[in-house]
């Protein structure tokens, strides 16, 4: 256990390794195509889907505009209902708080509800360092944890795994973590799920403390909400005596009416279901029923940094549905690990730079470039985040952060040279005449249709010609043609 994304190579390098993993490619293509089709089907059923998206964006924006007030309301409501509220500036503070609670009760283990926020802060690793085992109870998280693997998707962290791989992980690793998998375990989904159920049931019955995140936190009533499919989350939320929830400060919604909107948008966007099987809500402590000691850790960890960005703050609308991952053609081919974060895909490519800032970490700086700007993500985002627009803005932020570097990158020099060459029609015309001379040479071979094409260029042109032919320059540019004949062309009878 304890693998982290720290120290992984930047996206372009990591992506090459992922592309070469044929099992990963097949698993991802199959899984994303399936979820895409399911989502498209259930979204098409909702007549006012576009209105819902606009409303959801408006609610989130209005909440973010007055985030401080809503958080204080949330804190007051939670406190009134017997919840101990903690504030954490960053991952280390949040992890320390959770660890202190576990150790304060003398515990050596906790069970966990699937939670992106606790993955973001590296809670499991931090707890392990203090001698507390954190058991993941979501099926896909369990597969990742037992496999000493890393999550590759927000909703389906083991999306890169096929059933045969999962069987091998269960057979090899379950025994060390608790109840072993049956010796004759097959790769039938029902058998795999049954093995996980028996393995986890022991942990649910034994656990005295659970850790969760929250999909939403309703300020007016101090209610936390977890949306899930398996019911394992509800086991964690109801059985142990102590419950600690780590909640990003952007998860607050003012009222139950607002919550209704998001509960309609999330399942259809996320799992492609009309409604998710389990929606758990809890408002503090109820004597004699469920956890009797309830904590909420409200986490910043870069969120106020993103909030300070005029355009960038819309990234905090995100409800972690992962629809953008499932439609992203880049994600589909490389999977989540290449992004080097628990938040992969299009949303990760903007969220990580906005949370952590750019200019210091090459892996973060590479993320906004991990996209063709095709815009498929923006079409499915249930809260209307302009992901392509923010990708461009974060690219600008990366470039600006490096403007004072003592040694500019080759790319920066090329862009400056390009902008100079294209900055004036006369200079561009001269360049075209020079390339026209090259075009007169009998270079390369005939491409389909007859035009000459180049199959080899020295670096950096080889980045193109490695797999693609490139048309040789034409003898005459459009500019030259226009000044020679264009004024008359087409006026023939």
């Amino acid at each position, binding site marked *: 256990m304890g693998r982290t994304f720290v120290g992984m190579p930047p996206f372009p390098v990591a992506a090459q390794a992922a592309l070469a993993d044929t099992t990963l490619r097949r698993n991802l293509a199959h899984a994303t195509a399936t979820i895409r089709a399911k989502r498209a089907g259930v979204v098409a059923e909702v007549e006012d889907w576009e209105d819902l998206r606009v409303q959801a964006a408006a609610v989130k924006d209005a909440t973010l505009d007055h985030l401080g007030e809503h958080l204080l309301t949330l804190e007051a409501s939670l406190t009134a209902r017997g919840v101990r509220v903690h504030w954490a500036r960053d991952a280390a503070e949040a992890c320390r708080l959770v660890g202190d609670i576990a150790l304060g009760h003398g515990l050596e283990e906790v069970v966990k509800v699937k939670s992106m926020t606790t993955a973001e802060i590296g809670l499991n690793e931090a707890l392990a360092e203090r001698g507390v085992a954190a058991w993941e109870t979501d099926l896909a998280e369990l597969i990742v944890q037992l496999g000493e693997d890393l999550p590759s998707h927000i909703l389906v962290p083991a999306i890169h795994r096929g059933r045969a791989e999962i069987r091998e992980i269960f057979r090899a690793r379950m025994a060390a973590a608790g109840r072993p998998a049956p010796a004759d375990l097959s790769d039938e989904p029902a058998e795999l799920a049954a093995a996980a159920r028996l393995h986890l049931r022991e942990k649910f019955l034994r656990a005295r403390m659970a850790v969760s995140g929250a999909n939403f936190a309703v300020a007016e009533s101090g209610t936390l909400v977890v949306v899930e499919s398996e019911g394992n989350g509800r086991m964690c939320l109801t059985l142990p005596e102590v419950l600690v929830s780590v909640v990003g400060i952007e998860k607050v919604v003012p009222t139950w009416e607002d919550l209704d909107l998001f509960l309609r948008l999330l399942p259809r966007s996320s799992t492609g279901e009309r409604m998710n099987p389990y929606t758990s809500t809890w408002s503090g402590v109820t004597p004699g029923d469920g956890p009797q000691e309830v904590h909420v850790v409200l986490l910043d960890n870069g969120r106020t940094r993103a909030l300070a960005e005029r355009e960038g703050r819309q990234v905090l609308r995100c409800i972690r549905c992962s629809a953008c991952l499932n439609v992203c053609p880049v994600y589909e081919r490389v999977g989540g690990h290449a992004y080097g974060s628990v938040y992969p895909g299009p949303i990760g490519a903007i969220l990580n730079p906005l949370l952590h800032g750019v200019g210091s970490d090459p892996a973060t700086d590479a993320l906004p470039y991990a996209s*063709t*700007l095709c815009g498929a993500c*923006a079409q499915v985002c249930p809260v209307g985040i302009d992901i392509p627009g923010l990708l461009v803005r974060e*690219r600008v932020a990366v*470039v600006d952060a490096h403007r004072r570097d003592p040694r500019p990158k080759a790319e920066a020099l090329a862009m*400056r040279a390009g902008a100079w060459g294209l900055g004036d*029609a006369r200079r561009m015309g001269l360049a075209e005449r020079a390339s026209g001379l090259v075009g007169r040479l009998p270079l390369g071979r005939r491409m389909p249709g007859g035009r000459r094409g180049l199959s080899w260029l020295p670096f950096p042109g080889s980045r193109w010609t490695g797999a693609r032919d490139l048309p040789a320059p034409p003898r005459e540019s459009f500019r030259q043609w*226009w000044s020679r004949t264009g004024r008359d062309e087409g006026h023939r009878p």
Partner: protein
Amino acid sequence: MRVAVMATCLGDALFPEVPRATVRLLRRLGVEVEVPPEQTCCGQPMVNTGYLEEAVPLVRRTVEAFAGVDAVVVPSGSCAGSVRHQHRLVAQRAGDGALQEAVADLAPRTYELSELLVDVLGVTDVGASFPHRVTYHPTCHSLRMLGVGDRPWRLLSAVAGIDLVALPQAGECCGFGGTFAVKNAEVSVAMGADKARHVRETGAEVLVAGDASCLMHVGGLLSRQRAGVRTMHLAEVLATTADDAAGVV
């Protein structure tokens, strides 16, 4: 009606047949065509790579070159998208009020080719003839940034003799993505390989799209594969008439 052609830097320098076809097509439809000589590049390669500062002089040049014309036609979804949706960002960066006004003035006068033909000129049958098996790839920026919808398909459907076949998973990106094609060349090629496979599944002889850049990418792959499929810009097909030698513009 007078229309100014924005050749685009790629069209001017590497694919002159595309703006030439645009000129020919529009003249055939009775449009008075201008080609402002001061135009160069809209700045999109810089903007999309994050070099906003470097794009400022290019945006300035573009708005100056096209000042005062009734309408601008761009045979490229992504360059039209750049003028309509990105120049504002560049002008903001420049902090130049006059440039912001000029950008806001140019955007609504700028049309992608299929938009100009269908919405402004009101034609879908442009009198073209192209007796070949053709498939059409809707490029991302024309489809999702501009929202040209089925206009190109309607224009192609009206071409005499054409055998137009639908492309499987047509709406998925080809993987070009501007500098993405070299910064993340491997992913770009992996995406392009799937696009090329779908093109080959159609049995088409010609792949048509509204962006020379995307065609350069998919066409480069098809050429390397010796696939026997050529690429043509929408303008080239629409400019071809029964009088032309088949397929040669």
